[in-house]
């Protein structure tokens, strides 16, 4: 195997990455740094994780490599206070709204529905796996001050390919599931944190990373508005979500 080296900028962090298949580089085209551009201490997939990556049976499919790299790059970015998560990241009134949920639960449907209900109001930062940049410390300087978490676009945009070029500060999180009726409720509890934890993409190789992500899920639920949205029917559930977002007491500085 002759690996291909690519240099990327992910969530504002320079990353050095080796690819098994040269064709995989095409999926990262928008995020590749020009050849020869100086990089200061790029992040790399640690050796232990890289060995695990090489052990994965990817067949001869570059797409599989592109997809499988997410977990390993997410691990590598953790040292830079970033993590990749499985969510649709919307841009709305200058803030990012994350819609988290299992594959097939309707994240793209809700995204498309919101855009239809409010044409021009909702952008998409990343359709499938945005990068979350979080503070190294969650200590607040003032009671009302909320730590800043940024939501960055990434090369993993889902089948629709929705993404734009700029990050936005996190505003709130929606945990989406299917249900017998349309229902939305605030969720500031352990179940919400567990569901959020499960949306983080990771290789689960390093135990310290697992602890860090458990803490991150906890802090996000403590510091940001989180709702559980059960959807039985669209567009009614989308209208419910929109009504909730529009009536939420957002901090002024985020508008």
């Amino acid at each position, binding site marked *: 195997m002759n690996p291909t080296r690519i240099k990327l900028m992910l969530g504002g962090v320079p990353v050095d990455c080796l690819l098994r298949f040269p064709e995989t580089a095409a999926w990262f085209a928008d995020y590749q740094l020009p050849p020869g551009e100086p990089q200061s201490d790029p992040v790399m997939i640690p050796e232990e994780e890289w060995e695990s990556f090489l052990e994965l049976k990817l067949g001869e499919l570059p797409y599989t490599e592109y997809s499988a790299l997410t977990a390993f790059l997410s691990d590598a970015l953790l040292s830079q206070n970033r993590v990749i998560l499985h969510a649709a990241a919307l841009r709305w009134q200058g803030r990012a709204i994350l819609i988290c949920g299992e594959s097939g639960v309707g994240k793209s449907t809700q995204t498309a529905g919101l855009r239809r209900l409010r044409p021009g109001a909702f952008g998409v930062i990343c359709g499938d796996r945005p990068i979350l940049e979080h503070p190294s410390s969650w200590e607040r300087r003032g009671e009302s001050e909320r730590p800043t978490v940024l939501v960055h676009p990434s090369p993993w945009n889902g089948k629709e390919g929705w993404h734009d070029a700029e990050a936005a500060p996190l505003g709130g999180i929606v945990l989406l599931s299917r249900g017998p009726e349309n229902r939305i409720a605030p969720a500031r509890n*352990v179940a919400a*944190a*567990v569901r959020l*934890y*499960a949306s983080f993409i990771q290789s*689960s190789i390093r*135990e310290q990373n*697992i602890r860090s992500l*458990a803490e991150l899920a906890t802090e996000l639920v*403590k510091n940001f508005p989180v709702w559980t949205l059960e959807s039985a029917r669209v567009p009614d559930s989308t209208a419910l979500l929109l009504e909730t977002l529009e009536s939420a007491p957002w901090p002024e500085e985020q508008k």
Partner: protein
Amino acid sequence: MKYRAVEGIVSTTIFGKPVLIPSRRAMDRCNTIQVLSYRWAFTWNMLEQEKPLELILKMNRMFCREPDEVILEQIRAFEADLCKKGFLVELPEQEEQDG
């Protein structure tokens, strides 16, 4: 039944509640591929530190999902596998009562 985590299972907290989360090493040694798709379900299972069946039913109620025998069977098998391979140790009844 409660479990004590041993090597390969990370003992930590989420939102102040103790959780046991399998590391890759534990998953690789067991029935990984089946379980990874239902990682959140398994995490919930470990969170409660109870037997899977009751947990999944609880989870199904919470997330309004229809109980799925296939998932139940997979998680049950994974949990049994974790115990068999020594990643999880069932606490004796007395210890369970103690805490």
